[in-house]
């Protein structure tokens, strides 16, 4: 996993609540057995006028001119600004894979669905929760300012606006460490392999029916 320390990047607004994982990456693309290549199909049904198929060259497909990510001013965005309950629905990790492959490293929302939130951290994406009032202000600024950029500093746990205002955010200490260092969860957990073995052996004795 790539580490995440600090990012200064272009912001794209997706002013909707309850953006679900079916919208982030529709089911036909879940048939892939790879982790990469989902970016061209991120928000597929909103982004294109036709129905997308796996393995297609998306550069030739008709784009929906009304979908915000298709606007010239948001090309190259790395920070997605959205509303409540982003990523609700299925556990498909293809959703963060698609966001990452497209180029997003940060998603800022009023709230996230649990599984999606968790999946982000496993892929070097930083999901940030900010209060509604701060989001309202950010949406207004993005709308009003071409080339609107934010600085996200994970070590300091702040989002810094162009006017210098710093918006603090909360992140679990363990997740923060993993992201700052780009640590692989499995490697970390296997440091406790002896503890897991001991736990398992005790369990085998106490609840043998679980090991039949």
């Amino acid at each position, binding site marked *: 996993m790539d580490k995440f320390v600090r990012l200064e990047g272009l912001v794209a607004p997706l002013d*909707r*609540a*309850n953006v*679900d994982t*079916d*919208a982030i990456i*529709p*089911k*036909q693309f*879940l*048939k*892939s*057995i*790879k*982790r990469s290549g989902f970016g061209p199909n991120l928000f597929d*049904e909103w982004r294109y006028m036709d*129905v997308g198929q*796996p*393995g297609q060259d998306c550069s030739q497909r008709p784009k929906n001119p009304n979908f915000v990510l298709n606007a010239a001013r948001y090309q190259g965005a790395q920070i997605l600004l959205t*509303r*409540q*309950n982003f990523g*609700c*629905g*299925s*556990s*498909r*990790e293809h959703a*963060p894979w698609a966001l990452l492959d497209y180029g997003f490293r940060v998603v800022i929302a009023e*709230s*996230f*669905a*649990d*599984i999606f939130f*968790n*999946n982000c951290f*496993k*892929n070097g994406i930083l999901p940030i929760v900010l209060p509604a009032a701060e989001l309202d202000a950010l949406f207004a600024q993005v709308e009003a300012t071409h080339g609107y950029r934010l600085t996200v500093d994970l070590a300091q746990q702040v989002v810094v606006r162009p006017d210098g205002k710093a918006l603090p955010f909360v992140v*679990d*200490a*363990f*997740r923060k460490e993993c992201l700052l260092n780009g640590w692989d*969860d*499995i490697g970390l*957990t*296997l440091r*406790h*392999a002896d*503890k*897991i073995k001991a*736990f*398992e052996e005790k*369990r085998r004795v106490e*609840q*043998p*029916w*679980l*090991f*039949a």
Partner: protein
Amino acid sequence: MLQTLYDKLWQNHVVHEEADGTALLYIDRHLVHEVTSPQAFEGLKLAGRKPWRVSSVVATADHNTPTDHWERGIEDPVSRQQVETLDANIRAVGALAYFPFKDPRQGIVHVVGPENGATLPGMTVVCGDSHTSTHGAFGCMAHGIGTSEVEHVLATQCLLQKKSKTMLLRVEGRLGKGVTAKDIALAIIGRIGTAGGTGYAIEFAGSAIRGLSMEGRMTLCNMAIEAGARLGFIAVDDTTIDYVKGRPFAPTGAAWDAAVAYWRTLHSDEGAQFDAVVDVRAEDIKPQVTWGTSPEMVVAVDATVPDPARETDPVKREGMERALQYMGLAPNTPIKDIKVDKIFIGSCTNSRIEDLRAAAAVVKGRRVAGNVKLALVVPGSGLVKQQAEREGLDKVFLAAGFEWREPGCSMCLAMNADRLEPGERCASTSNRNFEGRQGAGGRTHLLSPEMAAAAAIAGHFADVREIL
């Protein structure tokens, strides 16, 4: 100290805890299917790691499998490759049980686990699928996980998890005629919203919950994730234990007695404290139908489509307007006036034998309405299908004009050939009515099997209470 069921389950599985409360939970059962596992197996291989305990793995192919013409195999090459990848991975590493495509016990992973006794009370169950909450019906701590976590569990037998807050969702009273576990689930989501349970582990309790069969409890816990809760569960009682007894992977003899003694402790202590409590009266719940593109957009069958003009929150109002436009509905339309094009009875929410019996009871001796283009019944597993055929339910459905299919996830998410065409409207017993869920441009209305059957016969939504 008084403990909730969640406290007990948590305590029983913590291997290690970090300073910030992040814990390693030991995983008893790992359910695996073809969509969310290939990258995990690949990751394991690339890192040169071996699975920790393959006897915890139960696998099946369900999302991509076709529901008709099995003699032709899987015709979509991309789907076929995914299913063959699962075959190869399980062949390479092994499993406690594997029910591949066409196996008599193949089916939807959340149907297959419980019916084979692979889901036992008090277990930690994981699966790379959000509807893993289903197994909470057995007093399990059942997490839906992403693919990185699938790999993590394969490699370490543990899940990294922080403890959730607890919510007690109490449903007291008696359900009315024609009101089901699905209606409880939808009514709850309508009340607390799709993010209402975010960050919570929900314990469903109360006399109406105790009165549900195991299959009803699975339907309810299945939908916990649609309320935002990663975990939903119900205390163990006689209903739980009676269901588990005698199933292929259930313990026997002395091990059974020891297991039952432990399982009897799997309930919240009287007076244990929850972070939130929600009370619902069973008598207030009517048969539900969703009208929008989120499960929280739901009303009773005798209501009308809500009017965004009456919504004061601008984000919500815009969401409602967008949903109505997508669904092709006008505000204030009576739900019963909405015509349907397709019917889908199936999915991990509602494809078990009791669901099929209930739908068949409504259908029996009647015909699917002329305006309905397709009415599908997709049993949850090969075993459910066999049982239904022994009872003659297939004949009831076929005589009424339904199609009787092979098991799988099917039109719940349309990864196989079963799907809606743009603009088609479906009465569906599945769990999500998101845009495009059942096919690009398709319009999904969620309801119970009884209500789906009633809609098939009427050609529009109908109140099953007036038919029964």
